[in-house]
C-alpha cells in the first residue's frame, strides 16, 4: 500500500509518515495540493492520500475536487487530516469526495482505526 502525505508542515508530515510506515505503508510526501497532483501524474498512484486543508499554492479541498474529477484516480482513497473542525467544512469535504476526516490533534490510533475502517489496514484476525 502507498500513502501520499500532503501537508505544508514538515513536522506533521513526519508524524504521519511514522504512523503509516508502522502500518506497512510506503510513503511519499508533498507540501501542497499542486505538488501532490504532479507527483500523482508522474509517479505511482497512491492507495490513499492524507490531506491537510490549509496549505499554500493549492489547498486540500481543491486537491480533492481535482482528484475526484479524474476517472483514472477513482480508486484513490482520500482522508482529510486537518485542524478545520467546523461541521459544514466536514460536510463540504465529504461531499467533494473525501472518504474520511480526521481532526487535528489526533492520536496514532485514530489514524490506524480510520485506515482500517477504509479497508486499507488489516483488522484483527
Amino acid at each position, binding site marked *: 500500500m502507498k500513502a501520499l502525505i500532503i501537508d505544508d508542515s514538515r513536522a506533521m508530515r513526519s508524524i504521519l509518515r511514522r504512523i503509516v510506515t508502522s502500518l506497512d505503508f510506503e510513503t511519499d510526501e508533498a507540501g501542497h495540493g499542486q505538488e501532490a497532483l504532479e507527483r500523482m501524474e508522474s509517479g505511482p498512484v497512491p492507495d490513499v492520500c492524507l490531506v491537510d486543508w490549509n496549505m499554500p499554492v493549492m489547498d486540500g479541498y481543491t486537491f480533492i475536487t481535482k482528484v475526484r474529477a479524474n476517472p483514472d484516480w477513482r480508486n484513490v482513497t482520500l482522508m482529510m487530516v486537518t485542524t478545520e473542525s467546523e461541521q459544514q467544512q466536514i460536510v463540504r469535504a465529504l461531499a467533494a469526495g473525501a472518504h474520511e476526516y480526521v481532526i487535528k490533534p489526533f492520536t496514532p490510533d*485514530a489514524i490506524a482505526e480510520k485506515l482500517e475502517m477504509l479497508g486499507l489496514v488489516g483488522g484483527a*484476525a
Partner: protein
Amino acid sequence: MTAQDGHPAPDRRGMTTATDTYESVSALVRRETSMIYDAGKEYLVEARLRPLAAAAGCTVDEYVKRLPIDPVERRKAMDALTINETSWFRDHAPYQVFSDVLLPRLLEARAATRHLRIWSAACSSGQEAYSLAMLLDQHLPAGWTHEIVATDVSTAMLERVRNARYSAVEVNRGLPATALVRYFARAGNEWEIVPRLREHVSTRHLNLAAPYDGLGSFDLIMLRNVLIYFDQETKHDILRRMRPMVAPHGYLMLGSSETTLDLPPDLAAQWRREQEGRVQVHRPATGALT
C-alpha cells in the same frame, strides 16, 4: 518521593516506593470494585493518580495512604483507576454483526412489543452505548422504540455519558466522519451527541460484581472487554448472574479476545456459543437456568 514518569524510584529506605503504593492501590481497587490490576500496571496507577495527588497537594504515596480514611478522595481515585480507553464502534465487526444479523432476528422476536432493550455493561465514557444508538437510529423501523441502559462502576464516567460531550481526539477514534456530522453538534471545542440519540440512553451506577436488581431483562447485553479485569471466580459469578438478564431470544456479546470456553461445565451449559463470521455471540441455553 514518588516515581517519575512511571518509573519506580527508590525511596530513603532503599525500597521501591511505587511497589508499596501499587500493592496498596491494587488491594483497594479489588476491595471496592472487584477489579484486578495485574502486575506491570504500575505506570498506569501512577499516571492516573498523579493529577489527583497534585490537586490534593501531596505525593502519590501520601495520597494513597489517605485513601482508606478519606471516602471523597477514594471515590475520585476509584473513578480514575477504572477508566478504560475506548473508541466508537470498537473492533467494528461486532457492530456489523449486530446490524446485519442480530437486529433482524431481534425485530422478528420482538414484533409484538416493538421495543428493544440493550445493556451497555461497564459503559466507560459511553462510546459503546452511543455507537449502538447510532445504528438503531439508522436501522430500526418506524414505530419501534428502544432503550439503552449504560452502567458503570465510575460515577465520573456516568456523568460523562449523561453530558455526552467528546473532545476532537475522542471523536477521531473509530467514528466515521458521516456519523460525526449526523449525530454530533459542535459545543465550543467539544462535540455533543444530538438529543435524539441521548434520549434513548439512560445511566445507572453499577458494580458488575454486585446484584443486578431492578434492571429487567435485555435483548442484547454488551459485556465487552471488562471480564478481563476480574478474577476467575468473579468472572464466573458475573456470567452466571447475566444469564437470566438476557431474554430467551437475546444475545450476550463479549470482547473480541474474551471467551466462555474455559467455563466450568455447569456454567458453560447455561450459554450457547454461536459464530457469526469473525464474531462470537452467546445466547442463553434453553432450560439450563440454575
